């Protein structure tokens, strides 16, 4: 039962992240980085929901891959988990940047510097979501349920 509570909390936190990432009023992305023209474009071109979803998918997908696809005693140490976290923290902003850049290029908009600075925060969000996802789903892993911190 306790594990399901962790799972539900993880889902709620992730959903909250998504909601605040798409919000017009209190936008979590804009709280951390704001450059009016760039952020207005991100909002108008509907980029926020997609990059938030991509960040969630990469983070939760990374955690699921570690706990259920890799799921091996050979990789059950904390540093294996940390390596996956590092991969997620690199992969998510790269994917988001590529998407962001594609949308902007399609509309002929140029915000390269702003886009790079903006995606730096995706590193943090992806890492945080990976931790949340890990503590939500690790309990049902046959070999890695004790990683990164033993139960």
């Amino acid at each position, binding site marked *: 039962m306790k594990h399901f509570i962790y*799972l539900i909390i993880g*889902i709620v936190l*992730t*959903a909250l992240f*998504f909601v605040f990432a*798409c919000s*017009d009023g209190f936008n979590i992305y804009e709280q951390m980085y*704001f*450059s*009016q*023209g760039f*952020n*207005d*474009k991100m*909002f*108008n*071109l*509907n980029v*926020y*929901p*997609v990059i*938030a*979803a991509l960040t*969630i*998918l990469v983070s*939760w997908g990374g955690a*699921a891959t570690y706990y*259920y*696809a890799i*799921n091996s005693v050979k990789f059950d140490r904390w540093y294996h988990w940390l390596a996956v976290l590092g991969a997620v923290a690199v992969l998510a902003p790269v994917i988001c940047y590529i998407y962001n850049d594609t949308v902007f290029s399609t*509309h*002929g*908009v*140029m*915000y390269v510097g702003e886009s790079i600075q903006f995606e730096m925060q995706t590193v943090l969000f992806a890492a945080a979501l990976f931790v949340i996802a890990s503590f939500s*789903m690790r309990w*049902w892993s*046959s070999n890695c349920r004790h990683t990164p911190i033993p139960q």
Partner: protein
Amino acid sequence: MRRLPSWLLCLCVIAVGLTACGGHGKLDKAVRSVLVSGDTTRAAYDSLCSIVTDNPGKYSDLVTGDGQVDHKRMYELIQEIGSKLRPPMHWDTRPYGGVQELSLTIYFERSGSMVPYDQRGGGGQLKKAVNDLINHFPATSKVEINIVNDGIYPYQHTVDEFLKDRDIYQSTAGIGDASYTDFQLIFNKILEAQKPGNVSVLVSDLIYSPRDTHGVSLDKIFNEENSLATRVFARYKGKSVVVQQMMGDYSGNYYPYNGQPFNYTGKRPFYLVIIADSDVIDQLAQDTRYRGVLDAPTVTNSYRFNQGASEVECRVLPEWENNAGRFRVRHGDGIVLTKCQGDRETGKLCFSMAVNLGGLLKDDALLTNADNYEVQSIDGYTLSIQPIDPSMVTANNKEYLDGMTHLMTLLGDFKSPRDEVHISLRNELPQWVRQSSCSSDTSTGGSFSTTTLGLEQLLGGMFDAMRGSNNLFDVTIKIQR
């Protein structure tokens, strides 16, 4: 992998669901895309309507009982989506949907002093202006032509014959009494006869020449002219009048108000007085089918009467060459600049705002003269204004400049933690009216070629009758530290 729990699959479904929540329906997305790309054309509107008609079941709230697109609901939906964008965007689609075709009634003045405007040796600017006007109304069944002087007389030939007529005053010779023009009767008849969706245009030199002026002082004639214009137009509420001044070749006798006729060859101003319901004039300004009516390149000066304080669309530019200091635009009700900071070196705050003054139908000389504006604020902000040039538009600022006509730049010392900058454009008779008016026309000297006797009194009377408010528009910008 075999042990992948079923709840993880549920998670995937939730994740996909979350992603879907962030998107909109196909129509919402298409509307957003049109607004963001600035492709606010009739073709774009038609493509949005086709999304609705392709799937009437899904968009049942946007379809009328007989299966047609409900244009009023479409307009509301587009405004709702536009209001959520940054900056909020407005697209008036009303002219595209279900609006009846406009009809045109020409009132062609045939007084003695009009005949020399259409001589065979002249440039024919007057006739061309009327022909161009008619050509903006392709359905000739919707065009009616009248000859006016002491009364209003129907033109006896077809519209095509009028267009081809190389000597219009010759072919209409003998109609009415060309020795005087009764504006009171003409304007009254025009306004009385006007039906919904009709655009009436008086083609005239706007020289008031009533009967029996022998021995009457010019001041008395001017006062009479002014009063009659006020009296006539004050009776018809909801009407809007656009006066366009053009220049044409004049060759022949000129009849001064109190003197002997004399021969004159050269330029003279003539006028198109466009009279319609206010919403029809709005449609003329917005509907691309009729836009040429008000945007004719041969217009020297123009002015729209009957303007109350209008809503003017404004967008603060986040990045602009003149910007000084820092600010953040808060989107929502009104224009609010938050987190403002003065420039580190000068302490000044400077920002630029794109505005759409096209709907006011005022000439650029009036709109770009900062003296015509009143600016009130605690920190003493000053205003400069310039027309938006296509070369200013880049992909990054397109959303802010698209559809806008002018750029207002406000500069002030950033001292007060909270300030409100009120900008208004005073509703006054434009300068060109005074400059184009004269009180004597007995000789060809001076500004004879560019002025009209008593123009200020006539248009001043119309202005008094239709003056809606003291300001043509008001804008307030809140500035917060």
